[in-house]
């Protein structure tokens, strides 16, 4: 009888020990980074705080009146604020800065100790109706403010992600679009003037030496072919994420979130590219110059 009790107690003990060991393993963050991957992230996380800026451009659907960037931002914010389910964390578990509703904060584990992450998420429109927005003076102010944050981030943030229109090569745009009397966007004007893109290039060229930026993501239609070559000339050290083709808004949003998640979980090349669906030219985004 006592042998049976002893056996049972041993069995229970073993089960408890195994459960504890499993729990500990599950909740322990371990980093298995190859040397090149480790070196890359060591550079990205060299400072105590990682600054990340995500900016949504003015996402009109002209010739329709609908403007969607506030809703896309809200969906992204919801993800940022959702509690993490895995110990590695990632793009989750942020707390909103009580001083500034556009800023989200968290601390993440890295091989070099815990690091703070300051994530700023901005949008451009003041409402969902382009026609109303054009009559609202707050729209001009907000567009200019978001543009300013984006351009400053090119120097001051380690990671800058733009999610919006490419304006057929015009570049990032934060204002209601230039349209004709039928409500159609004047793409030729954007293509020719390239105002948004030139503003970017100016900042990137001017602030090259003291820039903190290491990753620039342009989640907008055909951004790889429209902007990559000149961006690489302007800032050869900058890692770029772009789209090969016209990209559906939800795919662009998913890839924006996947980029944030990958960077915060220190994903190495293969899993980062998989998260971005790099091999799918229709839905995916292309990461270049980050690990190579």
């Amino acid at each position: 009888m006592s042998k049976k009790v002893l056996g049972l107690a041993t069995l229970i003990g073993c089960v408890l020990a195994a459960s504890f060991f499993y729990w500990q393993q599950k909740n322990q963050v371990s980093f298995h980074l190859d040397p090149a991957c480790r070196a890359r992230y060591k550079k990205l996380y060299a400072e105590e705080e990682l600054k990340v800026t995500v900016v949504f451009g003015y996402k009109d659907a002209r010739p329709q009146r609908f403007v969607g960037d506030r809703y896309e931002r809200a969906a992204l914010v919801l993800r940022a604020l959702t509690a993490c389910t895995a110990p590695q964390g990632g793009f989750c578990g942020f707390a909103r800065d009580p001083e500034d509703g556009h800023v989200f904060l968290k601390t993440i584990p890295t091989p070099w100790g815990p690091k703070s992450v300051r994530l700023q998420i901005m949008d451009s429109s003041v409402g969902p109706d382009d026609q109303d927005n054009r009559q609202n003076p707050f729209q001009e102010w907000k567009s200019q403010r978001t543009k300013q944050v984006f351009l400053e981030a090119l120097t001051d943030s380690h990671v800058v992600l733009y999610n919006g229109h490419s304006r057929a090569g015009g570049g990032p745009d934060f204002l209601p679009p230039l349209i004709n009397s039928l409500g159609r966007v004047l793409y030729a004007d954007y293509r020719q003037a390239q105002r948004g893109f030139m503003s970017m290039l100016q900042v990137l060229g001017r602030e090259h030496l003291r820039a903190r930026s290491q990753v620039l993501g342009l989640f907008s239609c055909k951004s790889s072919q429209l902007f990559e070559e000149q961006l690489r000339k302007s800032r050869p050290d900058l890692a770029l994420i772009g789209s090969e083709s016209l990209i559906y808004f939800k795919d662009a949003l998913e890839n924006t979130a996947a980029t944030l998640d990958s960077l915060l979980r220190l994903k190495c090349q293969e899993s980062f590219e998989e998260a971005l669906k790099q091999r799918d030219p229709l839905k995916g985004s292309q990461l270049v110059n980050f690990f190579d």
Partner: protein
Amino acid sequence: MGKLLAVLFCFHASVATAQVDETPSSWSLKARELFTGDEAKISAAKAWFQNHPEVLSELSENLPHLKDPHLALDAMVALGHREVMPYLMEHLEKNTDGSYALALAAFMDEESAPRVLGRFKQVLERSPHGASPPLALVLIDTLARLNVPLSASTMDLLFTHPWPEVRSSLLQYVRKNKSSGHFLETLLQDKDPHVRLGALHAAKELSWVNVAAPQRVCSTEQHPLVLTFCQQHFPAEPEA
């Protein structure tokens, strides 16, 4: 027996879902072309959906199980597949990102407007903090744009919503309605600087707003961004 039935049901459900995703495997390709293609591709994609009328019906029946529900929903909106509306109305609260509400707002016409707006109002009034914030944002935007009032108690609770984006969207009521000046006073004192900025812009723009309130708020403002706006547009009165 029950387990067997459950397994069979699950098997059937997964096969049904797979069929929608895989059979006309081109549906998602065609749907993407509706939104990312040139005019020729858009026309071709529309024609494809017209030639396969069963696809949208199958997609709408399996909406929550699809790999790409947003794309399916956007295609339904673009192609006017209104049969999905009852499903969207019924499951409005469960959809946390607000895409069902956006689709309903896009489908809305004169005949369906009272039902859709009534449902939107019901979701907010039943639990002003209960709806997912992205959903609440769409509901408030739509109701405010069409000047559909919410009850005073709902508004009071929405002004204390934890998301500044939701509080900020209430400004649209102020812009639409002169009788909502007291809402502006509340938003001018919001704890988030971006909400205060929006309110100050409205106060500057709307001629019927008494400038005493923004000036009072500006006199104690600390946030640099808001302070700059205050100094430009609501400077302190020189002391006598």
